[in-house]
């Protein structure tokens, strides 16, 4: 056993972090929120170049093979830098199509996987089943090139995004995309493939939530070291220290669950990781908001980009309640 990232994995994470740190991601996220997808797609292409979207595409379809651990590293970085767009959904769509191919239905995979892997195609998807992990809206369907809808044992490619529904996070644009358009596949293998795709979506969302929590903690630590009230930096107050210590504990005990879930792809372990990362990210948001005070409650401070993402990510692709039930089901 060696429960440590190897040098290559650490280097991959560092590279992504550097790439995103230099990309003014807050500006990209703000543009995306306004409906301007151009900077987002430029960034998407660079992420694809770094290999992010190949991590869930088999090599025969121009991918890197299925690399769930690297995926968690990438999505922690995406969360940490508040990258907008249907990244989780693109990964889940890739898994869905790759799984269909494994089950003999290779046409949609051939048509789409190379495009998704190289970043020229963005995908989103929506599903009503399985009920416990239902994803009622297709994220960023307006920006996506491929809109998948799973309805029972049918897989549709929707021609239209459908009605928009506002999210608390304006960088997350939700759509009630309807199950109509082109029928890509039908039969029990759709449900089997979808289940695998959901597992990857849950894993990637957990990683993203963890990255969001980490960014919130880092920004708050920086703020309380500078902000002065009553003549001292507020970071000297014990109540502030203890609250941030609790956030660090939550984040640091969530990450090993995430990596273990990536190693095993066991549904119970994925559910555990989602609970821990989702709750830690949201706890970080609550602390960040409280300790920033009023300025943290404004949309103009970049902190809002992470604050508004934390709770939707906690609930997306498996609410804590659904994931706890999965853990108890064994």
């Amino acid at each position: 056993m060696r429960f440590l990232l190897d040098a290559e994995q650490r280097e991959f994470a560092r590279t992504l972090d550097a790439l995103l740190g230099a990309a003014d991601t807050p500006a990209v996220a703000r543009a995306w929120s306004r409906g301007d997808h151009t900077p987002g797609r430029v960034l998407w292409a660079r992420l694809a170049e770094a290999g992010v979207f190949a991590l869930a595409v088999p090599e025969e379809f121009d991918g890197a093979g299925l690399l769930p651990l690297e995926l968690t590293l990438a999505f922690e970085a995406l969360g940490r830098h508040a990258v907008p767009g249907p990244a989780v959904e693109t990964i889940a769509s890739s898994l869905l199509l790759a799984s269909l191919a494994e089950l003999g239905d290779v046409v949609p995979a051939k048509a789409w996987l190379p495009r998704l892997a190289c970043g020229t195609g963005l995908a989103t998807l929506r599903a009503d089943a399985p009920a416990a992990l239902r994803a009622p809206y297709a994220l960023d369907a307006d920006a996506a090139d491929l809109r998948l809808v799973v309805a029972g044992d049918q897989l549709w490619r929707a021609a239209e995004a459908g009605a928009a529904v506002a999210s608390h996070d304006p960088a997350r644009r939700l759509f009630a995309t309807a199950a109509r358009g082109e029928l890509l596949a039908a039969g029990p293998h759709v449900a089997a493939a979808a289940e695998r795709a959901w597992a990857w979506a849950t894993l990637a969302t957990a990683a993203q939530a963890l990255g969001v929590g980490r960014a919130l903690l880092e920004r708050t630590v920086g703020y309380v070291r500078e902000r002065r009230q009553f003549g001292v930096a507020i970071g000297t107050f014990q109540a502030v220290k203890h609250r941030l210590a609790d956030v660090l504990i939550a984040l640091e005990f969530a990450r090993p669950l995430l990596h273990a879930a990536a190693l095993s792809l066991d549904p119970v372990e994925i559910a555990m990781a989602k609970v821990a990362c989702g709750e830690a990210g949201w706890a970080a948001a609550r602390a960040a908001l409280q300790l920033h005070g009023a300025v943290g409650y404004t949309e103009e401070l970049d902190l809002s980009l992470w604050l508004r993402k934390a709770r939707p990510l906690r609930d997306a692709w498996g609410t804590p309640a659904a994931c706890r039930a999965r853990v108890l089901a064994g």
Partner: protein
Amino acid sequence: MDLAHDPAVESFRAEARAWLADHVPAAPLPSLETREGFAAHRAWEAELAADRWSVVSWPERYGGRGADIMRWLVFEEEYYAAGAPGRVSQNGINLLAPTLFDHGTEEQRARILPPMARGEVIWAQAWSEPESGSDLASLRSRAVRTDGGWLLSGQKTWSSRAAFAERAFGLFRNEPGLAKPHLGLTYLMFDLHAPGVTVRPIGRLDGKPAFAELFLDEVFVPDEDVIGAPGEGWRVAMSTAGNERGLTLRSPGRFLAAARRLAAQWDACDRDPAVADRVADALIGARAYQLFTYAGASRFAAGDAIGPESSLNKVFWSEYDIALHEAALDLLGPDAERADGPWAESWVFSLAGPIYAGTNEIQRDIIAERLLGLPKGRR
């Protein structure tokens, strides 16, 4: 000891309930933090005022009904139970008006209160400054003496309602450099459209301009708009702060209505067992808050002052409000993300509760030091 209201109070309740049943808009008004919603809420204030329901606890000559505190609590219960709109005049009614009653002149009251009661003049509060959030004594905006009044300069922030309001009130330093920072402050009212005032709306988390930054550059305020004596502002303001944290900022009626809504939603969600404990605690907490307030109101009616126990109040309701909304969102599952959901706007609002009107960290310090007698000094 008894919990039954007097028959006269119950008939007041019945009158309020009947009026509200006839007048409360069937559909919720647009958010009061938007221009359109602000106007709609202002119209609602006028409708309330037309039948003297906007400021029930004020004397009749200013538009009220002279309701005592029990009647006020009962009115609030009925108001929120009826699902009536939020109060756009809240800053004026709950913060400025009590100050005018305690420290204003009769001229000021006669001039300012009736248009406030009718929603014609909406007031913003202007307490905080960029470097003075919880540490209010460190205010730096200045009031400089001039002929017949004062010239205000400086910067205020987190001024709620200021994006669309007419006027504002706050503290300004008229005598800088005194040994104690809460000395030398003056309480003034000013016009948000006066020359020298720049209002920069600030979007809160959901983007709505719920507050604003105010830039003041030699804004003239006549002497008649000073409340209390110059230099006495801290003392004048503190009586308002007590009100803000105490009985008037969050009436129990709000939480009773919210807890009932939550319980109804839980019923509709097949009584989801994962949220059951929290629904029970919401019902228990709303009742506890109501009873705690009744006890305080009874003491107040018996002649006691509202003291530092208002800090207990502030921490309780603000954390209760968040817990209630978290339970409600969890009942919605992934739909909790919808910004147009049934709890969305009040959830965003609840998140500010532990921050404003004195952060909960400050309140706990006050509780520990003033109510439990623990030593001051460190934090």
